[in-house]
């Protein structure tokens, strides 16, 4: 019987190696906060984080950064008053700025087996300096490579034992595409449902993309 549930946060986070690239889903809502605390406890170092925003001085992403566990962040948004900016100024962190749509598309491409694509986004900006551009269909386009990752940390509203997921409202955001792009996709879910509870046409992230699921009841942070 396929059963992707794991009984503890420790087991959920087992095996993440030093040097791993980690996708962190969420955009205001849908952040896998318990798994992030698990990553902090798990100890892997020299990480590359792919996350929409590194804008804060608080929360588990900032804590991972402050603990010196991260080599590089790929994101669309940083603030001056953030741990990421401070570490970058100190020469202790590399930040790669990626337009948010390009970030989403690169992650989807990684999950979908597309190696690279051409997009007009950012093609005539400083982000394109020194990189390959080409005019296609009359539009200047920039070559962007797919992002795949060793690990994806994903939040869900409901999960079944095959790893089929739903995400509530705008907590969907990066979760389905990051689940696709992680070689090891770890999910925290608010609710556990029996197989078949989620109608086939309403599955938002199919279990084929999911490796481990941890039940984190709402309000329970451990």
């Amino acid at each position, binding site marked *: 019987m396929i059963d992707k549930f794991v009984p503890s946060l420790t087991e959920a986070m087992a095996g993440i190696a030093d040097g791993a690239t980690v996708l962190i889903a969420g*955009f*205001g*809502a*849908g952040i896998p906060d318990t798994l992030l605390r698990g990553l902090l406890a798990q100890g892997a170092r020299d990480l590359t984080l792919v996350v929409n925003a590194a804008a804060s001085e608080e929360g588990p992403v900032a804590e991972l950064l402050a603990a010196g566990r991260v080599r590089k962040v790929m994101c*669309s*948004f*940083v*603030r*001056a008053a*953030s741990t990421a*900016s401070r570490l*970058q*100024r100190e020469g202790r962190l590399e930040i790669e*700025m*990626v*337009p*948010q*749509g*390009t970030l*989403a*598309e690169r*992650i*989807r491409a990684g999950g979908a087996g597309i190696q690279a694509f051409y*997009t*007009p*986004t*950012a*093609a*005539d*900006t*400083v*982000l394109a300096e020194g990189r390959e551009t080409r005019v296609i269909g009359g539009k200047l386009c920039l070559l962007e490579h797919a992002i795949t990752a060793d690990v994806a940390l994903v939040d869900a*509203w409901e999960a079944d034992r095959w790893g089929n997921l739903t*995400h*509530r*409202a*705008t*907590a*969907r*955001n*990066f*979760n*389905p*595409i990051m689940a696709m792009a992680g070689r090891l996709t770890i999910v925290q879910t608010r609710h556990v449902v029996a197989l078949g509870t989620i109608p086939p046409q309403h599955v*938002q992230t199919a279990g084929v993309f999911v490796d481990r699921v941890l039940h984190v009841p709402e309000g329970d942070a451990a």
Partner: protein
Amino acid sequence: MIQGRDRLAIARRIAEDIPEGWFVNLGIGMPTAVSDYIPPEREVIFHAENGVIGIGPAPAPEEADPYLVNAGVQPITLLTGAALVHHADSFAIARGGHLDLCVLGAFQVDEAGDLANWAHGLTEPTRQIGGAMDLAVGAQRVWVAMEHCTKAGEPRLLPRCTYPLTARGVVQRVYTDLAVLEVTAAGFAVREMVPGLDFATLQSRTGATLQRG
């Protein structure tokens, strides 16, 4: 002393120009307020980068759902008829030409329609690209909402942007506290000035040479 439009008045002025049936993305900041000034009987569908099509009015604080936010991570409601998608599908809408309009804030706009709205310089630690580069090149129309000058009185409408660009040649209209301007082949054309403002004064507050009407 000229009474310029305040931020909400700029948003209200933009709302006047959005016809029924358009799909519109509103940037963070001043543009977000535009939707508040669309009369309920005029159906305009607002999109947010985080996967919302059909944003409704802001909820009362006690009714805010933490699972339902816009691209500025503010609580929202959904219109009847709304749809929710994931981030890649949401940007497929933005990048695929499916938005009739995107209203963005800006630091600078130049007479070629170049837009600068993500950083004051390359070494600046605040870099707010977000979805602006995607929206600016993907939407059918880009309108900018901004103050005509910086707080220090420096013009934001320039012959050429000095800040790093968001996208080149994309801005069609600029709505400021002082005027509504269109980007034309000949540069900025003044379509409207606030009452009491004369052309010479507007020109004195503008870095680029303005065209009359």
